[in-house]
């Protein structure tokens, strides 16, 4: 089981689906960011799995995964500071109460 690419890809697919559900369904902005992190991790697992099981991608897979890791850190920094800035204005972390543009 741990020697097949399909097992890792299906696992990453399940993790990505859980992240998608969390992103679509949660009301809290931080929860949505955590779901995005789950989805990024699923993509990283896919990249590593392809790198481990396809010989022509052997080293490149790890290089791409490391760069994705750094970009995910940058994304988390900016995303969380945007949430903090919005919270300072609106006094709520719930995204369905951010309705200024609806009025």
């Amino acid at each position, binding site marked *: 089981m741990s020697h*097949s690419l399909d097992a890792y890809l299906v696992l990453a697919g399940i993790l990505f689906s*859980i992240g998608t559900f*969390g992103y679509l369904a949660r009301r809290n902005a931080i929860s949505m960011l955590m779901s995005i*992190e789950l989805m990024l991790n699923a993509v*990283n697992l896919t990249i590593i799995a392809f790198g481990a*099981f396809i010989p022509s991608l052997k080293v490149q897979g790890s*290089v791409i995964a490391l760069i994705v890791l750094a970009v995910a850190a940058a994304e988390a*920094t900016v995303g*969380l500071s945007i949430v903090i800035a919005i919270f300072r204005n609106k006094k709520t972390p719930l995204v369905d109460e951010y309705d200024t543009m609806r009025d």
Partner: protein
Amino acid sequence: MAIPDAVPFINLGWDDLLFIILSTVMIGTAILVVTLRDIIRCGLAMMVSFAALAGLYVLIGAPLVAAAQVLVYIGAISVLILFAIMLTQTKAGPARLVFQTQAVPAAVAAAVLGLLIALTVGATNWNAVDAPIRVGTAILAQVLFDQYVLPFEIVSVLLLAAVIGGIFLAKREPDSSI
């Protein structure tokens, strides 16, 4: 004492057993992340999920990426998220409704997405080899700092820009009341 080739009593290899344990922990805690009511517990469950994923990286033969996963995700991003939780949650937060009104359609959409991915994976021939290829740290470092040194440097500039942008976005305005 020699360790037997397969797990006693059940006919599984050790790496298969580890794969099952780690993936169960990862998926279970990921479900906790998206369903728990208390958001601090969501953050802690997310750390466990990242740790199990680092274990899977070791199992698949990418130890350097596993170490980076522990340092960056568990060490940095989780702590950042926990700090953001402390800065942004109101006292009434956990008592309120956790999900949007479209939670059921979202669950259906996520299930359909997972099913589609599983079907696509099953129907495609990837020309994969039978056992994972280990990537040593020396060869990875050689490729990263020779062939891919420009993306590496661009990522470091991107991180610097993101940190400056984060400070700019999150800093208090001089005339704000809080």
